[in-house]
């Protein structure tokens, strides 16, 4: 039944081939809201105490002679990701209403195709099916960024495509390597299912696990992105149209982190549990590096892009510590970062739409012109600053705690993220919102009703999840405990 989450948007995106004109945005919103309602229904019938590895599971044979099946399901972590995807998609669609893109039918069709792919990624429990969905998401986002993007978009998006495509191919080889090590079944074939691949990984020696780890790591490292595979990211975020940036930063990047939890760590258990620190070091370099560069930027979108690099580095580092805290923090921070970064890019987009610029040196005095925007923006900024009682705090606290339990120096360096973040975020907010009114902001209008609702929803979530994050812990608890037993977390 959960499979409908993939097929509703997929069907809708095919429908968009035949739709012309402005009808598109209503239809897109309708389908994405249907999907949201459906995923909330799944949430309500999700059993947080269940012993099953995956609930709402579906399993159909696909290519039997290759050991591939169309199977998937939801555990706590993937349910949260699916919820995030289906919550953010209508928000992203709505955010584009104010400035309807050229060829709206194609645009919204691609967003829905993307949604289908993302839901598939988070639900798949078959290695090749996961890979197929993983790649399916790349095509629509590339078209969105390359067609509706800004200046210099073509070389930038080609770089993005080749980077991620190459990374994914390494993952494919890694999965094939595991697949060839799975036991041969009665049908005479190997098996591509998640459980079988995990078994295969267990039977491998350290050298084999190391190969698998690095091959699969490539794909996720590019997507997350982890230093030094990040070079595509800031440019791509900057040239993409706002909805594209939100999809990339809000959801697509979570694919990488989710991938690490589901498809990387269980496939190299001995390696990672024996205190393998290199990935953590890479992630922490990204944390500091992203934060440092963000301080120097004047383009608001670039600041948000580098801040994302910095935040996500911390999430990934937390996961690689393999502690319960790190994992729990990562899961909660994945959700919160998705909400915050989309809010951030939304606010930037709204300011750019009104003033025609994202350059901090040309902005100022928005507080007096657009108080509603300023207040809601403030809440979102505080959220990404991880101020207590906002959603960013819980996750970041757990993540830093987990790194501390591994190595105190690393924790100290990673802790810089909090300071850096305060510097660049407050600088951004200060320069844009306060100060003298400039020629660009002189006749700026405040938010209209639709935009207020959009920003309001996000700001509300920032506060609610900050004050009461318990539901996220409840949903993901069982999944993380299962993970603990399989990986023997410390």
């Amino acid at each position, binding site marked *: 039944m959960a499979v409908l989450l993939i097929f509703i948007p997929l069907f809708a995106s095919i429908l968009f081939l035949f739709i012309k004109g402005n009808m598109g945005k209503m239809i897109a919103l309708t389908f994405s809201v249907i999907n949201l309602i459906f995923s909330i229904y799944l949430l309500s019938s999700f059993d947080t105490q269940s012993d099953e590895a995956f609930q709402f599971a579906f399993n159909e044979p696909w290519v039997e002679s290759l050991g591939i099946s169309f199977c998937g399901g939801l555990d706590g972590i993937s349910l949260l990701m699916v919820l995030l995807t289906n919550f953010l998609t209508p928000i992203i669609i709505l955010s584009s209403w104010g400035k309807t893109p050229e060829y709206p039918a194609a645009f919204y069709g691609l967003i829905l195709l993307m949604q289908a792919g993302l839901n598939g990624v988070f639900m798949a429990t078959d290695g090749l099916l996961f890979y197929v969905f993983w790649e399916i998401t790349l095509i629509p986002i590339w078209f969105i960024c390359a067609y509706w993007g800004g200046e210099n978009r073509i070389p930038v998006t080609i770089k993005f495509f080749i980077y991620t495509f190459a990374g994914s191919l390494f993952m*494919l080889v890694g999965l094939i390597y595991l697949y060839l090590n799975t036991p041969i079944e009665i049908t005479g074939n190997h098996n591509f299912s998640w459980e079988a691949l995990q078994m295969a990984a267990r039977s491998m020696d350290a050298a084999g696990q190391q190969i698998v780890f690095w091959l699969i790591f490539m794909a996720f490292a590019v997507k997350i992105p982890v230093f030094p595979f990040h070079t595509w990211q800031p440019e791509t975020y900057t040239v993409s149209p706002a909805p594209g940036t939100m999809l990339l930063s809000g959801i697509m990047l979570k694919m990488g982190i989710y991938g690490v939890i589901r498809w990387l760590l269980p496939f190299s258990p001995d390696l990672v549990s024996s205190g393998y620190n290199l990935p953590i070091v890479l992630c922490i370099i990204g944390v500091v590096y992203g934060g440092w560069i963000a301080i120097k930027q004047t383009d608001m979108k670039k600041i948000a892009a580098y801040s994302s690099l910095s935040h996500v580095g911390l999430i990934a580092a937390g996961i690689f510590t393999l502690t319960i805290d790190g994992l729990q923090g990562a899961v909660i921070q994945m959700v919160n970062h998705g909400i915050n970064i989309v809010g951030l890019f939304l606010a930037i987009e709204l300011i750019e739409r009104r003033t025609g610029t994202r350059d901090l040196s040309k902005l100022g005095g928005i507080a007096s012109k657009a108080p509603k925007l300023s207040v809601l923006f403030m809440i979102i900024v505080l959220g990404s600053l991880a101020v207590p009682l906002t959603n960013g705090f819980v996750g970041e606290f757990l993540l830093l705690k987990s790194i501390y339990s591994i190595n105190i120096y690393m924790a100290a360096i990673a802790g810089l993220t909090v300071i850096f973040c305060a510097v660049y975020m407050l600088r951004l907010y200060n320069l844009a919102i306060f100060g003298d009114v400039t020629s660009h902001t002189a006749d700026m209008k405040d938010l209209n009703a639709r935009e207020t609702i959009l920003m309001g929803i996000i700001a509300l979530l920032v506060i609610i999840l900050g004050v009461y994050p318990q539901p996220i812990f409840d949903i993901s608890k069982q999944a993380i405990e299962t993970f603990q037993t399989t990986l023997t977390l410390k």
Partner: protein
Amino acid sequence: MKLLIGLSVLAVITMMMGLFKSRKFVLPVVVLGLLGLLYIASGYGCYCEDKMFGMYINEHQFLKMFDINKNSGLVGLIMISGLLITILAHKGFNYTENHRADMHALMLFSMCGAIIAVSYTNMLMLFLGIEIMSIPLYIMAGSNKHDASSNESGLKYFLLGAFATGFLLFGLALIYGATGSFNINQIYNYTHNQLNVSEGIFKMGVVFTMVGLLFKIGAAPFHFWTPDVYTGAPNIITSFMSTVVKIAGFGALIFFFNGMLHPLGEEWGKTFAIISAATMILGNVTAVYQISLKRMLAWSSVAHAGYLLMTVAANGNNVPKAVVLYLAAYSLGSIAAFAVLITTGKENFEDYNGLGKRNKWLAIALTISLLSLAGVPPLAGFMGKYYLFTTVYEQYPWLVIIAICTSAISIYYYLKCIIAAWFKKGSEDAVQVPLTTVFVILVCILGLIALGLMPQPVLDLA
């Protein structure tokens, strides 16, 4: 056997129709004929051939020389590709209006040769098949008489092809000298017993044959003719060369090496691995620098030959399956791309600027076919590549790593064309697509999607 006889008779009839100037009926007759033959081939036709012309097959030396049943997958692929290209020729042969019938006949003869080349059980038939396939091609490549590059293409192909044929024949003769037989079963036994394998004359023969066959499939270092010949030849002929001929070449190659010389895999596997790596790198890297879609497709066909050669090198049990699946994906993708090329009649990337505005569906078709060639899931090209990698990985992991690196390069030049079609501004005149071409493109695109989602039937065929 009925298939071959039918095909030859159809070719002769087509030729006669040219004589009587009944131009309009040529295409329907050829298409109906091919459909009928496909029916025969798919149904019972191939499987009840104990008796023919009142003779039992195993009594007659000639009929024992090939066996169409043994690789129905490749034969079917040749027939389907040939059929699609024939339909495409409705527009594709516009440049030689007066010789339509002749060209169709030549194409049918060439298909006969291709079928023989993938179903030989006797090396004599391998040679004859390759020749029957090639000689009409030399004519077809040069068939646009008023175009200098077409003439160049025909001449170049003929001279180099004749040279390669020499190698092939010499190689076969040497193998005969060493083993005393043309029959592949006997040669298999000879190599299986490992008696006098180290004999220089046998090895020389294998190497010469290898050169001849590698030339036909355009693998490095014998690929130099490919770009010039492919670019010079009329579009429709290029599509024929890059699909049907390639299928036949690979069929011949895998039955020679992975079939007949299977026991000696250790000795020739490494050579193929190196040739395959060189072909992949060379084809992909050079394709990046092309500014013409047609030339880019020519180089990409070299690159694809490299991928396919990986399986030959791996020499496992799944080689025919992997090759058939990959060739099916490759052929459908190529034919769709060439169909777009033939429709617009333009070769440079610049001419494709703004194709999305001129004809949305054509641009979608081009995008899907190129993405499939690049190996993006869930299209057929991905399944082909995936199966290839699984087949090869155990023996040559480094070859797979080279393959994925070159795949990453290849996405660049395929994207370049897609970008031209969608993101660049160009002329805005709508493109008219004839109904026949629409049909071909539709079949190819649906095939690419269906094969990507359900590759099982093709795997069962092989």
